[in-house]
């Protein structure tokens, strides 16, 4: 009988164990605290210098940081960076989609737009599986990496404005002459300065002081200032683009038979230089007006609603154009049709001007003197759109 009692208590114990096991399924995690709100998420309250820490979204990491887990998975990453790679674009877009009110990349800005819903749109198609090595004009760039937001921006902070990377397609893009040799700028050197001004649309936010301290800036492309080692930021900006589109980063006569470089097709020897041009090219490696990438192209993307014509007008401007009787000359539809890019390449190529209007904006008055309606000319006899070229 005593054995039976033992048996029953064992059974009872087993049942209890069963119940507790079932409850255990429902229980996981630890009680959250303010500095450890969830497993793996820690938030520093004190900064490197003993002061109360303030939050900054990108960069400014403290030595006791544990913000890493917001984007990186310590043990379950999908790539060597321990990122949940599939989500990179969505991660960026969880704030830059307009839900933070500012820095909405789907709206027109100094970098253009990522809105693909309008006529003649073209853009750096992040999140589409496009390879960095498939960039138009690529020659030495054989990168097999996917084109992502991080191909150009460093969410961890950068010496450059707008978090622009210091290394692109795997190398330091910014080089300048040191003792006659093109030498990479040391990491941590600001080479790209942008023309940033406080955005008047956010004047109320910009007026805030204290821990808020947020300044919403508007960019108008490279600033055109000397940033490092006597070189203009417009040239560094073009070098940035040229890191992927390497064959397009060139001087006007680079690679022509009149100015052969070693290894050019015209010299008959094997190609060793970065440029395959055996022809002339529009200069892209100068800081003069119209001679850097940013003169003609946006960084993010373009469409018919933001492109301008040689007179510097966009769709919104055209809608204001009236005849002498005060009647509107354009409707939204005709204005967009006017701005439609009909280039034979089938792409508007991230251009700031529609079609080839940028060429005409600069050279129009030379190639067609006296033929341009004076209303489209500025005080110096140049097309009005020319002033908008960086």
């Amino acid at each position, binding site marked *: 009988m005593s*054995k*039976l009692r033992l*048996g029953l208590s*064992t*059974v009872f114990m*087993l*049942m209890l164990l*069963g119940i507790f*096991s*079932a*409850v255990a*399924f*429902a229980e996981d*995690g630890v*009680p*959250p*605290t*303010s*500095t450890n*709100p*969830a*497993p*793996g*998420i820690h*938030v520093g*309250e004190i900064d490197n210098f003993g002061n*109360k*820490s303030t*939050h900054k979204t990108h960069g400014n990491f403290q030595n006791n940081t544990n913000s890493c*887990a*917001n984007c990186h*998975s310590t043990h*379950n990453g999908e790539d060597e960076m321990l990122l*949940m790679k*599939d*989500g990179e674009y*969505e*991660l960026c*877009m*969880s*704030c830059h*989609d*307009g*839900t*933070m*009110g*500012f820095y909405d990349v*789907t709206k027109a800005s100094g970098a253009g737009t990522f809105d693909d*819903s309008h006529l003649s749109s073209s853009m750096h198609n992040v999140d589409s599986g496009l390879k960095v090595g498939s960039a138009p004009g690529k020659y030495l760039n054989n990168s097999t990496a996917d084109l992502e937001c991080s191909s150009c921006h460093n969410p961890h902070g950068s010496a450059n404005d707008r978090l622009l990377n210091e290394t692109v397609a795997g190398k330091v893009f910014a080089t300048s002459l040191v003792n006659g040799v093109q030498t990479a700028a040391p990491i941590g050197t600001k080479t790209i300065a942008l023309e940033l001004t406080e955005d008047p649309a956010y004047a*109320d*936010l910009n007026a*805030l002081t*204290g*821990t*808020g301290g*947020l300044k919403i800036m508007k960019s108008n492309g490279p600033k055109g200032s000397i940033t490092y080692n006597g070189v203009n930021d417009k040239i560094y900006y073009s070098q940035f683009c040229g890191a992927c589109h390497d064959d397009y980063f060139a001087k006007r006569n680079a690679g022509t038979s009149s100015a052969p470089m070693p290894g050019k097709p015209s010299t008959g020897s094997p190609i060793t230089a970065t440029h395959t041009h055996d022809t002339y090219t529009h200069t892209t490696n100068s800081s003069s007006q119209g001679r850097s990438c940013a003169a003609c192209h946006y960084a993010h993307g373009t469409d018919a609603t933001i492109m301008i014509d040689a007179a510097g007008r966009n769709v919104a401007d055209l809608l204001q154009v009236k005849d002498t009787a005060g009647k509107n000359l354009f409707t939204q539809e005709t204005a967009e049709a006017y701005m439609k890019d009909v280039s034979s390449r089938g792409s508007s190529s991230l251009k700031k001007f529609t079609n080839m209007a940028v060429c005409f904006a600069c050279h129009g008055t030379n190639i067609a003197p006296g033929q341009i309606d004076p209303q489209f000319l500025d005080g110096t006899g140049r097309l009005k759109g020319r002033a908008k070229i960086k």
Partner: protein
Amino acid sequence: MKKRTVYILMSSIVALSVAFFAVVYFLNLETTIKPIVAKVDPSGPPVYTNSLYGEFDKPLNKPMDVTKIGEFIYVSDTNNKQVQVFDQSGTSVFKFGKEGTKKGEFKFPYGIAGDKDGNIYVADLYNGNISIFDSKGKFIKYFNDQKKVLKSPGGLRIFDDKVYVTDIKANKLFVFNLDGKKLMEIGGPGVDEGKFIAPNAVTVDHDKQIYVTDSGNNRVEVFTKDGKFIKIINGSKDGKGEPTLLNPRGVGVDSKGIVYIVNNLSHNIYAFDKDGNQKFELGGMGTDNDKLYLPNGLFIDDRDTLFVTDTINQRVSVFY
């Protein structure tokens, strides 16, 4: 009783227990068991029950907000520029809306709510308006914002015939009656108490207190029904310390007064008691059933069921 019978009885009980847990383990029934266990303990946190995915070849794309009207669940399927409607089992019943700026069209459908007649109100962040549809998804009219105060409506809820809308760019909460007459506005840009930077969501609890998610300031602010500031919930003690919230989004309060806040960048939902003390958290980054990946919108129904939009996993997860 014979010794032998007792042994047989005992071993069969052991065998049955082992078999039970083996079945649970090998057939992945853990998720089915969890809600049952949770029901036994009503004071415990809600547990994951199921997800709404939509059709396999036309899944949700960046679902930003969710609401339940009657027995149907309405989801703003933001990147598809439409609203998807599900029944409770997760079957996609119908959809409405397409990309555009005209009547019945969306550019960024966001906050979604229903009135007592079953009409659906959808805030469009980019178009800057609120569209009203009947329960079948037919466009009726635009919400008549009489003073034209709305610029970029985000969070949207309807309680007691009052429409609560956060305006993300104006950094304000507007309260209207159903006819569009502005009854109250709270906020304005700033970091001080009662101010907002990019308010993304709003809710009202059973005591008529108003909760506004102040995403840019990493906190939720609580107001009286008359719009007087009461307190901040940000994860710190008394809401006075540094926030542990990071890009908070959807907010909801259940019948017991527990405040649930979706914390977008840490991929979970925090639960706070009435005094702002953290009680527990749900989710965590991942693609498993009970995990979340950049969650955003939150709705709590009258049975205290939580619906949360999970933007990267392209689903709405249900916790009960």
